[in-house]
């Protein structure tokens, strides 16, 4: 029995649910946080989305059938929550999601919780210009070192399509960072 299976057992038993859920939060909080943070870019927003993600996970635990890995399922919830957050935020401001993300990337320079150098800043600005899917794939592959198979489980896309997306994203980023070309 793997550690994930043992944790799932505790989560499915009402008597050990709360303790098990505490363990789950501790085990996955950082990984999910960084995944969300790279989508929403701002710490306060990431904190809100992360908490909502865990609340959703808790409320839907009974619906988890174990057909995918627990962490892939949680990543999917976190991704959906972060993307929904971007949608509602941009709708409230009356701008497109792309414009909103670009706006947030521009603000990174003055963000107290961003201490990247100029290259890291330029990379984030370039990433904000990518289509949503390419941005997600790049972040999960490049920064989070996830395997294509796992990314495929989270995003519900074939491994081949993911490889193509990643390749395209890298090419566009290289072009932007070396020539400053608009993507």
């Amino acid at each position: 029995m793997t550690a994930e299976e043992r944790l799932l057992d505790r989560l499915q038993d009402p008597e050990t649910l709360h303790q098990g859920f505490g363990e789950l939060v501790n085990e996955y909080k950082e990984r999910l946080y960084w995944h969300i943070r790279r989508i929403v870019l701002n710490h306060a927003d990431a904190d809100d989305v992360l908490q909502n993600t865990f609340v959703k996970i808790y409320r839907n635990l009974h619906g988890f059938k174990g057909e995918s890995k627990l962490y892939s399922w949680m990543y999917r919830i976190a991704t959906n929550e972060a993307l929904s957050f971007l949608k509602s935020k941009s709708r409230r401001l009356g701008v497109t999601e792309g414009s909103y993300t670009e706006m947030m990337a521009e603000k990174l320079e003055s963000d107290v919780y961003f201490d990247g150098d100029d290259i890291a800043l330029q990379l984030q600005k370039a990433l904000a210009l990518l289509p949503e899917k390419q941005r997600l794939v790049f972040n999960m592959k490049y920064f989070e070192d996830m395997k294509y198979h796992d990314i495929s489980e989270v995003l519900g896309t074939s491994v081949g399509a993911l490889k193509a997306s990643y390749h395209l994203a890298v090419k566009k980023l290289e072009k932007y960072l070396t020539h400053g070309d608009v993507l």
Partner: protein
Amino acid sequence: MRKKDAHKNPFQVPSGYFDNLEARIEKQLNNAPTFGKSDGFGVPNDYFDGLEKKVLAQVLPNTKNESKLRPLYYALSAAAALALLLLSSQLFNSANEIDYTDLAFSDYETYWNENPIGIELDEFDDYLTLDDTELDALYTNDLDHSIILEYLEENTNGFEVLEASENFSEQPFNSDHNLEQ
């Protein structure tokens, strides 16, 4: 002998090189420019330490739901602040710009009864119907005694028993004189 020497490693390293190699690499890594996998994002100190409590507080029954309540709290605070602002601006405006047309007659009446000045409200109209000539006469400092005589003649029944010469000098009457002197 030659064969043995051929297998000898011809390269040399400074003495103690391997002893502190790990420390030097670590130092280099710490000083390396931020590039590659580092994305520059940071979090507040101890953010992850308190996260479990925050999340559990949201999902466990009978605990405070901070994240869900926060927007409601902000909305209520904003509404309360707006209400206070409107109320205070109304009070401020009404204190400085009283619109008498908004007062009902009953309000005057109540005020009058609570703050008596010795005149009946019904009589007040008499004071308000003075025309400009009469008001001018009231506010003129130097009154000629002929004006006073004329007034007394019109308004006093027993004037004929008085001797005008005994009561008025030829000097103009000054309204600033103390009448009791």
